[in-house]
């Protein structure tokens, strides 16, 4: 009874080892894809975008299988704060890199 209350408060109770194993296998596959792209530079022009796609996919795998982030009502504020952080990061990371790259090309 107490155990169930604690699980409920912490968002536990639905965890399974199988889910972690699936996440692990997916993460290993994506890691191998990333390292493979960096090691065998047969298609150089695809390597960089491929790396970033693999990284974003792997981050999503971690969020879903390890952090158990979903759209349930319990997680709503976690999602909202994550989305807001990503918006901020997009503005200042994208903006900074853009400004610095432009500055760099003007100095040439």
């Amino acid at each position, binding site marked *: 009874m107490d155990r169930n209350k604690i699980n409920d408060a912490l968002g536990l109770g639905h965890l399974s080892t199988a889910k972690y194993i699936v996440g692990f296998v997916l993460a290993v596959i994506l890691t191998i894809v990333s390292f493979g792209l960096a090691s065998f530079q047969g298609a150089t022009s695809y390597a960089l975008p491929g790396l*970033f796609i693999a990284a974003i996919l792997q*981050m999503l795998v*971690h969020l879903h299988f390890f*952090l158990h982030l979903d759209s349930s009502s319990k997680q709503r504020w976690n999602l909202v704060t994550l989305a807001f*952080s990503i918006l901020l990061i997009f503005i200042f990371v994208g903006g900074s890199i853009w400004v610095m790259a432009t500055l760099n090309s003007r100095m040439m």
Partner: protein
Amino acid sequence: MKHEAVSTHSPEHLKKVEINALGFWIYLMSDLVIFSILFTTFVVLGHNYAGSAGPGELFSLPYLFVETLLLLISSVVYGTGMVALQDNKSKTVLKALGITFLLGAGFVLMEIYEFYDLIAAGHTPRQSGFLSAFFTIVGTHGAHVSFGLLWMLIMMYQVKTRGLTLGVCSRLMQLSLFWHFLDIVWVGVFTVVYLAGVV
């Protein structure tokens, strides 16, 4: 003992645990902002080699792959610890924490050795903008992992002495968020800092 267990699981306590979890998540989001700034710094400075060695000469991909696997496996082992936590098996929780600690310590030791190797060969942070940014971002991540390890030791002690009380469970849950979060940041690090530099 029994009496205490009942009184600490009152609705107010359970509510507080939920609020704490959200608070910790917001801390992680602010940490995410810190790492994003360091990533930006790396992207801006990462090509300024100042005539010294670049990523192609300095990084060993097999070494990095082992490091990455250590951290990933530690993340999964911690996850199995959380499965044991929800089933109230404190022995298995302790075992999972111990294995996670060893894997995480292996990761940190490999990172320290890599730094030592670079610095011994004269590739210090003052050498170039690239190396300054490299040591800053990888070092910050390593410092986070090290604090996670310290926290893990404390949690092992608490599980042993207090058992799986509400407070201990709540902290174990927060440490799991922290640990998985650091693995996500590491995905960014090995992609942006190491692999994108080698490509």
